[in-house]
């Protein structure tokens, strides 16, 4: 049985990252997620929110919303949403991790890290919103 969701909506910009981090850390603590796992959750949230801040509303601005609830004991379900341009971050090809230093592309690692660290990550477009959802902790 899912618990009620906690929600926080803030301007979609880098300056909101700190407040979103405090918010999701409260969720992690309430769920008994501690220590190194909290850093991994921070990482995933930053990667997702930076993408929203940079791309969702270009050239305008808008809001990012984070919602979380405990999906099962010790486990968070998180949704990050925006009302920006339709964009599925998982449609891009994964980065080629085998290239040499000179040929290694600079971008694409954020989405890769999200996929690697969390479980059941999914994108959906719903009522004019991009919604990215995942479960944490993953298996790693």
């Amino acid at each position, binding site marked *: 049985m899912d618990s009620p969701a906690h929600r926080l909506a803030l301007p979609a910009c*880098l*300056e909101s*990252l700190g407040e979103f981090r405090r918010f999701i850390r409260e969720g992690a603590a309430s769920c008994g997620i501690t220590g*190194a796992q909290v*850093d*991994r959750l*921070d*990482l995933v949230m*930053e*990667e997702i929110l*930076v993408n929203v801040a940079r791309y969702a509303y270009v050239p305008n601005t808008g809001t990012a919303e984070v919602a979380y609830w405990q999906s099962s004991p010790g486990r968070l379900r998180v949704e990050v949403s925006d009302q920006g341009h339709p964009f599925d971050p998982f449609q891009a090809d994964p*980065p080629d*991790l*085998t290239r*040499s*230093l*000179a040929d*290694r592309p*600079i*971008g694409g*690692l*954020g989405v*890769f*890290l999200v996929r*690697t*660290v969390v479980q059941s990550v999914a994108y959906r477009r719903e009522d004019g919103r991009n919604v990215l959802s995942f479960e944490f902790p993953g298996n790693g």
Partner: protein
Amino acid sequence: MNIEATEHEKAVLLKVTGRMDAENAPQFEHACEQWMRRGAKHLIAELDGLEYVSSMGLRSFLSVAQKLQPLPGSLILCGLKGLPLQVFEMTRLIGLFPVFETPGQALATL
């Protein structure tokens, strides 16, 4: 994040502590570029006090290493642990940098 630089004969040692995230990762890149403009070819990043790095930080490390390589030079990583080590391993960036336990070991190879 705090960056403390020390000049050695063959390299500049940059001790990076705290969190390297989207808001401050460019500061690391700028610090490295300033030393490169002053002629440094080898930069040693001492990272045992680095608590967190996201993909924005990885971009900075990668970008600096790519600029140093043709000089020829290098960005050497020391003391990686915890989440930063995991992130370098997950992305397989770890294999693209010279990696040592301590700056002393790194300096001995130059």
